[in-house]
């Protein structure tokens, strides 16, 4: 990309001040306005919530190995899957990549010193923590038994759990993402370095931009919807409950108006990460850059008009269902386009199979299955059978855990050297990636079959259908492997902090601006504002000489071969 020369007076890496060691007090961390420090705060807190959500998931899987739940009471079980869903969706998946890696990398990738509103960024983290704290309090005080979807009138009139407290938590955490989204949009518009035109922006930045648009437009709707549930539950104002004169299905329309696009909030950032990883480790420009960039925007736009496919069996009119089904089929196309473009990028690349690339390949496999199984649910006639069964559970886990989580891990492994200045063990990372991939498929593939067999989601017992047990056992066994794959990185990554080799500026030989500054960067990212003269992913220019040399060698060898 650009060509900021290394500063000759550069200090030795160990003594050079950087954003991590510039100050050490707790106060300096809690009051920081540095986007990179805030990213680290998010990484730590999000990992904590992921661990909690994961524990709840393992309880669910353990319980379902027996057709007659023996470990938990029904009520406890219901609270367990609700806790799993609420934590994972609102406190892990939605903020995961944008709040950590968006925060960390986006300003550097466009050559900015920080986000447009550093104080707002810090406030976002506090809102996230307050929201998370309230949700945690609701869970500790006795839990919520509504599921993460909070469907009315159950949530507003019948549930005995701490629904209102949890909803207030989600509401506040929602503002955290709204502010982050606003911050990214303003930053991308106003803070790009000279020469960083829109079409020179890395695709991760495009993905973050599209994601932010969804967040800013969608999150207020779910916030208000949940606030209305709280109003109905506490003041008895009839909005959703027919007993009070409300409409029970109205909630679902408002809820999915956000929550379907929210799936794209979870997966688009991951797609952005993939474009970075695949370009970097194939040493090639992303094939069809414009198509990939615009498909992000297409997904963001179309994602808003498919929500009705969650309600094919709710009594909405047949015509409505037909329209929503049609658009849902169409929204699959931009995702397919991205996949083909990534494949074409790898083709004739110079592929470096290090661990981030392994995560990227794993993502491709899981994302394709997750995306295509979405068609079974977009399709009206099959949805009538599969709606709300384990087929749906498997499908959205392939997208949200397979896709979003692979993206998160890929991003973590890609930017870790930049964040910490240290290299981790690539071999252990590959083992981790393999465990995640195998464990994931073993956990969730059987659930497609369970869904076809008719097992409803959120069921605690299935003693009337013992034929479901074998698949449940497979799924639970897979979950153990998956858990191992998730825990492993904690060890080698933390190990690398102390014992890892120094990473240097650019351990992957990548071309993004963030790789031109030191690892870890200093507080202001760049010593001087970079000037961008090339398009993103201009690996060809970098590798031209190397490539020519390789061709020479090949010719020589061929020549020698023919001589003999």
């Amino acid at each position, binding site marked *: 990309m650009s060509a900021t020369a290394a500063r000759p007076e550069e200090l030795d890496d160990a003594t050079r001040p950087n954003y991590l060691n510039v100050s050490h007090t707790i106060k300096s961390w809690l009051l920081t306005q540095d986007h990179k420090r805030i990213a680290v705060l998010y990484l730590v807190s999000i990992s904590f919530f992921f661990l909690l959500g994961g524990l709840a998931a393992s309880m669910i899987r353990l319980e379902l190995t027996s057709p007659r739940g023996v470990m938990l009471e029904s009520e406890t079980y219901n609270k367990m899957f609700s806790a799993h869903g609420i934590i994972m969706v609102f406190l892990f998946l939605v903020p995961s990549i944008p709040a950590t890696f968006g925060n960390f990398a986006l300003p550097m990738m466009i050559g900015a010193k920080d986000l447009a509103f550093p104080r707002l960024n810090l406030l976002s983290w506090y809102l996230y923590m307050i929201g998370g704290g309230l949700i945690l309090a609701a869970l500790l005080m006795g839990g919520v038994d509504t599921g993460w979807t909070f469907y009315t009138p*159950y949530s507003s009139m019948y549930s005995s759990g701490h629904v209102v407290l949890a909803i207030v938590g989600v509401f506040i955490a929602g503002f955290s993402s709204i502010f982050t989204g606003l911050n990214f949009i303003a930053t991308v518009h106003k803070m790009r370095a000279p020469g960083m035109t829109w079409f020179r922006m890395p695709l991760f930045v495009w993905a973050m931009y599209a994601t932010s648009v969804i967040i800013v437009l969608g999150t207020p709707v779910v916030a208000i919807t949940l606030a209305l549930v709280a109003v109905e539950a506490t003041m008895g104002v009839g909005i959703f409950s027919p007993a009070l004169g409300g409409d029970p299905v109205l909630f679902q329309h408002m809820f999915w108006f956000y929550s379907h696009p929210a799936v794209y909030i979870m997966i688009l950032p991951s797609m952005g990460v993939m474009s970075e990883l695949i370009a970097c480790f194939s040493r090639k420009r992303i094939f069809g850059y414009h198509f990939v960039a615009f498909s992000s925007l297409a997904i963001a736009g179309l994602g808003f008009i498919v929500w009705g496919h969650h309600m094919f069996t709710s009594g909405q009119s047949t015509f409505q269902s037909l329209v929503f089904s049609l658009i849902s089929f169409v929204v699959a196309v931009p995702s397919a386009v991205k996949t083909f473009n990534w494949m074409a990028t790898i083709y004739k690349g110079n592929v470096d199979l290090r661990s981030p690339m392994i995560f990227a390949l794993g993502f491709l496999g899981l994302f394709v299955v997750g995306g295509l199984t979405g068609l079974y649910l977009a399709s009206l006639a099959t949805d009538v059978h599969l709606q709300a069964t384990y087929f749906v559970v498997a499908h959205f886990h392939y997208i949200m855990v397979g896709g979003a989580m692979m993206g998160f891990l890929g991003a973590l492994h890609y930017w870790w050297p930049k964040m910490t200045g240290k290299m981790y063990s690539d071999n252990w990372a590959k083992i981790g990636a393999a465990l995640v991939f195998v464990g994931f498929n073993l956990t969730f593939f059987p659930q497609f079959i369970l869904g076809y067999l008719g097992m409803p989601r959120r069921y605690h017992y299935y003693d009337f259908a013992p034929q479901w047990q074998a698949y449940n056992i497979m799924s639970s066994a897979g979950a153990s492997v998956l858990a191992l794959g998730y825990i492993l990185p904690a060890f080698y990554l933390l190990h690398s902090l102390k014992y890892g080799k120094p990473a240097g500026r650019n351990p992957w030989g990548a071309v993004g601006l963030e790789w031109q500054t030191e690892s870890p960067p200093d507080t202001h990212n760049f010593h001087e504002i970079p000037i961008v003269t090339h398009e993103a992913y201009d690996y060809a220019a970098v590798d031209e000489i190397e490539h020519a040399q390789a061709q020479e060698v090949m010719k020589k060898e061929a020549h020698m071969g023919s001589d003999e």
Partner: protein
Amino acid sequence: MFNFPLRPEAASTFAGQHDLLFGILTVLTIVFSVPVMILAIIFAVRFRAGNKVDRSRPSHENLKLELTWTIIPLLLALAVFGYSAKLFVDLRKPPKDAMEIFVIGKQWMWHIQHPNGVRENNELHVPVGVPVKLTMISQDVIHAFYIPEFRTQYMVVPDKYTQLWFQATKEGEYMILCNQYCGTQHSEMVGKVIVQRPDEFQKWLADGGRSMRPKDRTMVESGEDLYKLYNCANCHGDVDTPRGPSLYGLFGKRQQMTDGTTVLADDEYLRESLLKAEKKLVAGYIATMPNYEQELSEEQALQLIAYMKTLGVQKPAAPAAPAAATTPQEGNR
């Protein structure tokens, strides 16, 4: 020890069509996913750094190629959509001669009532080979009535009738599940459909289901009792009175409302007018009728509607189900 079934029994006319569509989608999924996975691995290994392979002409754009892989998936998607939509439209239109049964969902049981008054809980007896239409409503939260072996389900919503129809093709017992999370004992809100030969079903129905005998009253008769109990005829006689419009011959007709709209007098409208009379007023009338929301159960509302449907059609009460030709009274004693 374990068996690994790949699909549930197909026991309705729709199940076969569903499985065919499911198969088509599965073939498409394999056609699009397996090559991607295999090629990803082949490309990654073949073009790995250090491998001496031809990397010439690395192209970054190819409009024709991009359009091809945009348009082909789009066309395939549209084709599947069309086929699936056709099946769905059929599935949402019950045949005219379908036998009607009523379902009330509540935490945590399925309550079912046959037109002749026979009630069952968590069991649904139906004849094989006869289209059956379920009219469903919930008494509390949203449930979903789901029969995997028939490949069909529909939400059961409070304050609103929803419908589901199927035609069973095999005798036997199949699962009824609640497929919309509804609270603590959601997982235990299960039951079974019992599909019988039509003559056996008639015998069962006439016999009052053995376990739950009708109280000598069909749904229409119970409705008539309620009609008398609440003195409905005071205002709603065989002709319009200044107090209220006549209900005779009302069902299935369009009514002019005070606000100028016309409303089809269907189950949904009759229920609303019974429970919340002031919501929609027939042109020329004012809101004098009390709301019966607090007094009538969902079951009684269904019985009253069943009676109202017979008004002005032909007395005595028409047999409610085509298959229920035997008059229920005969079989009762």
